[in-house]
């Protein structure tokens, strides 16, 4: 029996997953806040509580994400790209995934997998807020719509309204303008989803889109975002039950394989 934990310290949310022999026993998702180390400890304890375990039960911890080197809990850290690929392998092995599209809080990634599900190529944008989770978050606030309601609202769109600018700063102004011009919330939100999907699709085409395509990260919970991306890529997407914890699951899965290979907790 091997018990391991994966900690994904994202820019916006921290995700912690505990695995026992490949089975998810418990997980936690909490806002990252200012003190990454403190957050990861709090998150681990929450996940342990859900799994009815204690810290001493865990054999190995792997951290990943933006704050992966800040947490003092981890035995080692690993890039989000690898963790994401491992997570996909663990969660969606049976689907034959070849491309992963991930929207994070402050970045977007497209990962191409080879036939053995190893990382073959990837593209990442963490320089510009356009196309990231932040884009959705800021524009939801501009419109005064709760983030969770964006998806459902966008499905009721009846008219095509486009966001013509790239930069989020300009998009904020454009969205306010569209609202003053009397466009409906539903149409504007659908336009926002389409703008993000277009940027992702451009990135994805650079690495090459091979089916099946797996969509993960927090915004994958948004049905409107999913539909827009399916339209842009012209292929159906496979979504995890809990898209937010794919990368953390991958980190825990890596930890498990390390233990099996003989890594001991120090």
């Amino acid at each position, binding site marked *: 029996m091997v018990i391991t934990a994966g900690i994904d310290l994202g820019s916006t949310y921290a995700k912690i997953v505990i695995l026992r022999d490949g089975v998810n026993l418990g997980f936690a998702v909490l806002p990252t806040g*200012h003190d990454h180390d403190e957050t990861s400890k709090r998150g681990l304890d929450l996940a342990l509580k859900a799994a009815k375990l204690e810290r001493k039960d865990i054999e190995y911890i792997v951290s990943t994400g933006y704050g992966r080197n800040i947490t003092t809990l981890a035995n080692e850290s690993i890039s989000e790209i690898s963790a994401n690929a491992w997570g996909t392998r663990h969660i969606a092995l049976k689907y034959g995934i070849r491309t992963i599209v991930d929207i994070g809080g*402050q970045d977007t990634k497209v990962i191409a997998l080879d036939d053995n599900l190893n990382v073959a190529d990837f593209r990442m944008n963490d*320089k*510009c*807020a356009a196309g990231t989770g*932040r884009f959705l978050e*800021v524009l939801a606030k501009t419109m005064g719509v709760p983030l969770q309601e964006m998806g459902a609202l966008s499905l009721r769109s009846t008219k095509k309204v486009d966001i013509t*600018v*790239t*930069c*989020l*700063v*300009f998009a904020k*102004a454009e969205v306010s*303008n569209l609202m*003053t011009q009397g466009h409906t919330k539903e149409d504007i939100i659908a336009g926002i989803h389409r703008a993000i999907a277009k940027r992702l699709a451009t990135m994805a085409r650079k690495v090459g889109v091979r089916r099946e395509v797996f969509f993960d990260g927090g915004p994958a919970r948004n049905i409107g975002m999913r539909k827009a991306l399916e339209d842009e890529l012209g292929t159906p997407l496979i979504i995890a039950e809990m898209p937010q914890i794919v990368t953390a699951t991958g980190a825990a899965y890596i930890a498990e394989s390390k233990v099996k290979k003989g890594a001991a907790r120090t």
Partner: protein
Amino acid sequence: MDVGTLYTKVVLMRDDIVVAMLMERTTMRSAEQTQQMLDVALENAGEEPGTPVEVFSTGAGRKNVPFAAEQKTDYITMCTGARFLFPTARMVIDIGGQGIRIVELDDMGVMQNFRTNDKCSTGTGCFLETMSLALNIEYEVMGELGLAAKNPCRIQSICTIFGESEVVSLVAKGRPKEEILAGLYGMVSTKVSSMIRSMGLKRDVVAVGGVARSRGIIKHLEDAIKCPVLVPKYPHMVCALGAALGASSRARRKGPPEPAKAEVTGTGGA
């Protein structure tokens, strides 16, 4: 008349001498706004409102000036204006409200090459406005405050939105605002200087547009490109000046102007 994304600028010339200048925040109703501004400028110059004037419009909202005889792109007017003020200019940098444009000219002032970035807000007027809110500093004093900073912050981001978060956390860590501002100047100069490098530096370099009013940004830019940057006294009025110069040479070619049509039709945004 320069209808920018953030501000509308009017320069009135009589016999090639500037007799009035005016700047206002661009509204959604450019047609009315530009007409009113023209009348005010005429009054300031001691003329009757409604006096016929040859008008050229420029800027992102140039199509929203119904009485303009001709519309000129910003590229043309910024070069005309800059070469009028600095006849030796070979490179003109315009940092406006929503875009950065760099034009390379030959000895005769003919455009050779240009670079533009209007997809990204970093370094533009929008960038400075966002940061002035994040730092809670008056927009007007932002250009000077960071000049004396001894230990400028290093800002990692190159995106306005991510930079804003970085600024907020630097403020929370208690870094002096002057040092953060100096870091922001560095962010702008990095972007502009890399655009310049991709074209090849040509002297003399002239900076125009509202952001060029920031002495801090100009100083950091000079350090980055290792070359002095000439800045006119009113850099934000240069495109409007270029348009006025264009209009006055057209007026000379065809004699006394027709009465300007002051009919205001429709509305338009910037």
